[in-house]
Structure formats: C-alpha cells, structure tokens
C-alpha cells in the first residue's frame, strides 16, 4: 500500500512538472505519450474515509488495470497510450474541489476528469464539469434530481440512483415479506440528518404509509451522533419486526453494536451506507449475517469475483459491495467509450456513454437518460457476501432471509 502511494506521488509530481513545461503549448497527437486523467478527491477531512473506500481505490485499480494491459487504444490516432494521473486533494471542501477541477481542465489540460466522492460534492461540481465540457460520471451520488440535472448539464451521468429507488425497492420487498406472514406491520425508521438520510427517509416515509405499514418511529439524528442507546432502547419497546436506519458509516456500525448489546433483534434489520463495507463483518462479528442494507452485488458473477480479487490485491482491502463496483464500472464505461470513439474528443465520448452499451463488472450496462438504472437496491449479508436482494431491472436476485438469525451475544 505504501509503495503504491509513493508511486502515485512520483507520478503526480512528474506529471505536474510536465504540465508546467507544456503549459500553453498545443498538445498534438504525435506529441502525446499518455492519456491524461485528472481527479480531485478528499484525501483529508470529513469525506476522506468514504472516498478511501469507494472512490480512490477504484481509480487506482482502473489506472493499474489499463496500464498493465498496455494502455488505451486510440484507433483514429493510431496509438495505444497509457494513462497518466494528475491528482489533487480537495480537502473535503466544495470550494477546493471546484477550483481543482478548473485547474485540471485549464492548467493541466487533462483529457478526462473523474469526479469526487459523495452526493454534495458531485452536485456542487456539476456546473464546473459542464462549463469545461468534461463528462461527469457521478458514481457516488444518490439524488432524485438526476432527471433534471441531465437536462441542465448534458454530459453528466448519474450512476447510483435516487432516494426513491432504494426506498421503493425496500418497501416492495417488505410488502412481500408481510404478505408471506414473515413480518408484522410495524416499522421503525431512524435517519441521519444529512443529504443521504433525508433523501431516503423523505422517499421511504410515504412509501411505507401507502403500502399500509404502520410507522411507529420515524426520527432523524444529527451527523456525528455517537451513542445510539436512546434510539435503540426506545425502538426495542415498540414491537417492530422491521428496523430501518438510513445511516452513515460510523452510525451504521454503532447502531449494530448497540442493537446487539440491547438484544434488539428484529426480523428485518436494515442499515444505510457502511453495511456493504468490507469492514462490516469485522465490526458486527457473527452478527453481520442476515443484516440488510443499501446496495448489493451479484454473488454468482465471475467478472465481479475477479474484480474483488484484483481490488484486494492492489489496495490491500476489498471493495465495498455497493458503490465500489459501480465506480469501477463507470470507469470501464469511460474506457470503452474512448476506445470506440478512437480519440479523445470529449463530446463524442460523452455521446457514446449516453447511447452505447457497455460490458462491465456489473454486467451489460446501457444508460437510460444518462442514468444508470440497473442497480442493486437492497442487499443482505448471506454466507459472507453482501448479496443483492432487489434489482431495479433484472431478476436473479437472492431471496431474503427473514427473519434474520438472532443476534449472537458477543463473547
């Protein structure tokens, strides 16, 4: 891991030196030695942990994969070029991110820019991508605004769905369980008071009500809450079979531990971001089995298994089972679009991304209205894998295990 980092640093330094040398010169095809990929990601600050799991390792893996394969073939230019990276730390602030993208676009003259991590940063950098005509492959943004945003920013692509997708899928899944008599009618929801939690709870609350569920608890808690004893204690006395938390990583883990300690073991235990993280089984111990959450993967896909292996080998950690594979798939889409266009014409590449069909680790993908609609929406830990239970488009989902196994008290 350390050696890898050192290499990227050297690479980054080399690139910026080169950029300074080349500044102002027109970049001609025959002068090219590489395809320049730029990104600004949070390496420090509040978003660093999230980006360190879903975004940065996949960027590294993709560059490594492409370069090991000899680079990208640009048929119109008659060359095959390796990828060269210019990376910046956006320090988890929007202001830095916007400026870094301006810099990548106009100083470093990179060919393509990869987006930062998270919904807010992707929304905030949308106009800047648009202004410089770079396609934006937002693989870690969950927003119901996507249909409007693609109208506003023609070359933006939204890959992780919106709050309604996840909420509706969850409700549909639970309706079936209720009809099968596996769970009762009572549901408790706790949501983190941040963009993600609110988007999902806003979609879920009416969906649950319309489906005839009784919402006996529906509250938010602030970002940064560390003690969930009050919430779990209250919910455990309400007789719910279904507990839903639209939570963020540290809360996701804390909620699990608190529920185990309080021996609150509802038949359906659903959590938000972080459930699909490879670290989750370490946190929850044997109790991870049967926990549901956002995301999921196809456990039978060989391409995905190979991706997991390569990712683990390069980064020293497994990818998460939600946004990681989609992030990697977004890069594969970019890669294939570039190769099909045969040069670095961003307009043409963006059009190809809009209209083409691509073969990725998550299967065959065709964007609908610039959005990835083929998504795993609900997953569950089964046999050590976070398998998909519900998919927006395709079958082949695993059946949920309801009730989940009862908690095993920690030793």
């Amino acid at each position, binding site marked *: *891991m*350390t050696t890898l*980092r050192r290499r990227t640093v050297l690479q980054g330094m080399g690139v910026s030196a080169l950029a300074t040398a080349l500044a102002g010169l027109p970049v001609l095809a025959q002068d090219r030695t590489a395809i320049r990929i730029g990104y600004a990601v*949070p*390496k*420090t*600050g*509040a978003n*660093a*942990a999230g*980006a*360190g*799991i879903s975004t*940065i390792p996949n960027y590294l893996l993709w560059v490594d994969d492409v370069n090991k394969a000899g680079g990208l073939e640009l048929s119109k230019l008659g060359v095959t070029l390796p990828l060269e990276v210019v990376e910046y730390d956006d320090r988890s602030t929007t202001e830095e991110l916007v400026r870094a993208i301006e810099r990548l676009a106009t100083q470093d003259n990179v060919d393509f820019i990869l987006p930062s991590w998270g919904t807010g940063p992707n929304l905030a950098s949308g106009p800047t991508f648009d202004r410089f005509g770079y396609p934006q492959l937002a693989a870690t943004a969950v927003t119901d605004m996507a249909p409007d945003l693609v109208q506003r920013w023609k070359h933006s692509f939204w890959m992780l769905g919106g709050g309604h997708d996840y909420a509706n899928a969850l409700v549909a899944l639970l309706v079936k369980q209720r009809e099968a008599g596996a769970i009762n009618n009572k549901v408790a929801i*706790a949501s983190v*008071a941040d963009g993600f939690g609110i988007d999902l709870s806003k979609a879920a609350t009416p969906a649950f009500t319309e489906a005839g569920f009784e919402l006996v608890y529906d*509250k*938010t*808690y*602030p970002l*940064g*809450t*560390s*003690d969930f*004893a*009050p*919430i779990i*204690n*209250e919910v455990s006395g309400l007789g719910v079979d279904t507990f839903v938390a639209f939570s963020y*990583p*540290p809360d996701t*883990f*804390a909620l699990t*531990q*608190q529920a*185990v*300690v*309080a*021996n609150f073991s509802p038949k359906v235990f659903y959590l938000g971001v*972080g459930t699909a*993280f490879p*670290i989750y089984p*370490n*946190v*929850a*111990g044997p109790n991870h089995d049967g926990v549901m959450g956002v995301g999921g993967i196809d456990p039978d896909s060989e391409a995905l298994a190979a991706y997991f292996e390569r990712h683990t080998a390069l980064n020293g*950690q497994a990818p998460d089972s939600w946004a990681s594979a989609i992030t990697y798939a977004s890069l594969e889409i970019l890669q294939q679009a570039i190769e099909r266009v045969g040069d670095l014409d961003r307009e043409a590449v963006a059009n190809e991304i809009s209209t083409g069909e691509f073969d990725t680790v998550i299967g065959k993908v065709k964007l609908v209205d610039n959005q990835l609609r083929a998504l795993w929406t609900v997953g569950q830990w089964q046999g050590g894998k976070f398998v998909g239970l519900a998919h927006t488009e395709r079958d082949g989902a695993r059946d949920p295990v309801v009730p989940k196994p009862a908690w095993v*008290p*920690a*030793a």
Partner: protein
Amino acid sequence: MLLSAILTGLVLGGTYALVAMGLTLQYGVARIMNLAYGDVIIAASFGAFVLFTALGINPLLGMLVVIPAGFVLSWLIYAVMLQPLARRSRDRGRLEGDSILATFGLLFVIQGVALVIFGAGFQSYSFLAVPVDILGTTIAANRLLAFVLAVVFGLGLWLMLTRTRFGTVIRAVAANPASAPLVGINVDSAARFAFALGGALAAAGGVVVSMYLTFSATMGVIFTMKALIVVIMGGVGNLMGALAAGLILGLVETLVASFIDPGLTLAATYLIFLAVLVIRPQGLFGKAAR
C-alpha cells in the same frame, strides 16, 4: 424509561469526562490550548486497534502499553515544541496564540502520519460489546468501562492533586504560574509533567473509545472540540468541573434523544453549553476572572 435514560446518559457522559480530563490538565497547568489533543486520542485508538487485531492483545492490557506511550509522546512534544514557546512568551495571550498555531500544525502532522500508515478508511473492532444489566437497563460493558475508568481516573487524579506534594506543586502552578517560582517551584517541569499526564489520559480515552466507536484518521478534531466544550463548560483546569460537565452533557444528550427528538441532541448540547457560559462566564466550577 427515565431511569434507563439517566443511566445511559451518565455512561455516555463518563466518556466525555474521561476524554476531557486530560485536556483540562494540559490547559489548566501548562496553559497550552492543545488543538492536537483529539489526534492523540485517535493515535491511541489506532495503537489499541493494532495491538488487538495484529497481536491479539486485549485492549485492557494494551492500555499498559498505550498509556505510557501517550505520556512519553506528550512529554516529548512539550519538551521539544511547546516549552520554547512557553519560555519566550511574556504574557498569556501570546502563548495562547502561539500554542494554537503550533498545535494546529501538530494536528496535521499526527493526522498525516496516521493517513499514510492506516489510510483514510474507517477502523473498528469489537471488544467487550456485551450487555450488562444495571437496574433493568442494558448497557454495553465497554461503555460502562469507560464510565468506570472516568470515575477511577478522575478520583485518582483528584487524590493525587490534593493529597501529594507533587499535586500541590501542580495546583500552585495552575493557580499562579507567575509566583510559583517564588516558592521554589520549577514551573517548566511541572507544566511538562502536567502536559504529559494529560497526554496519558488522552491515550486512555483513545483506547476506551476504540472499543466501541468507529474511528478514522481524520476524526481527531471531533474529539478535540468535544473535549474543549466539556473543559470550558466545567471551568478551565478543574477536574471536577470536567467530570460534572461531561456528565451533564451526556445526560442532556440522552434525555433529549429519549424524550424530545434525537434530531435535537447536538443542538441541545451546544445550547446548554452556551447557556452555562452566558450565566457563568468562567464555567461551572471556574473561578471568576477578578
């Protein structure tokens, strides 16, 4: 329900108090507003994490390594970096400004080292996450442990400060650094020791917190600010104040979450903090400025 909320709140408050006591010692005696305090906590969490996951050492035993390490590290930080600043500043305002800048730098250094070694991701392990039943309320053993340690350390420190000669020296320096040398006290070494002791307490807090909280290299500042709030609310340099303020904040947070709305817990925390300062500008247990 009320009893349960109160117990849970006290236990949560115990963590806050434990985390804050070291800082109140550092600020109260050494006059250093240590912005890197939370990063020392996180460093200790990483220490306990590595000992536990790589070497299989129980965090309670791990404390025997991590706490002295925290002491030595803080001792060195003070001796190398802060002592020259303390010596050259004539007045307290100057040292405050300098120490803010210097420890702000230190914060980045510790965080940067942790980022290089451990990456930015979340770390977590599970230890003593077993339920303990107290008066019908289920509490996680690791959180209970934090509370017990807060009380033990608080009591131990209080005894040390009030019953030993060394404690008298520390209190003299805290009360009046200018005149302490007149009675033959070496202010430098007292301040250095207090700063190191504060670091040891931070390390203890870090180990305990790591047992039940998910942490990452960039989370130090959250602990710093929480600790500062507790310290200021209790009255700078006052151990009992830190303990009381920690418990109050824990109680408020839990009671609001249980009976009003979990969405308002942090707002209530800050509101209480601000209200205390508006009514008592020197904190709960602090002495008036004049």
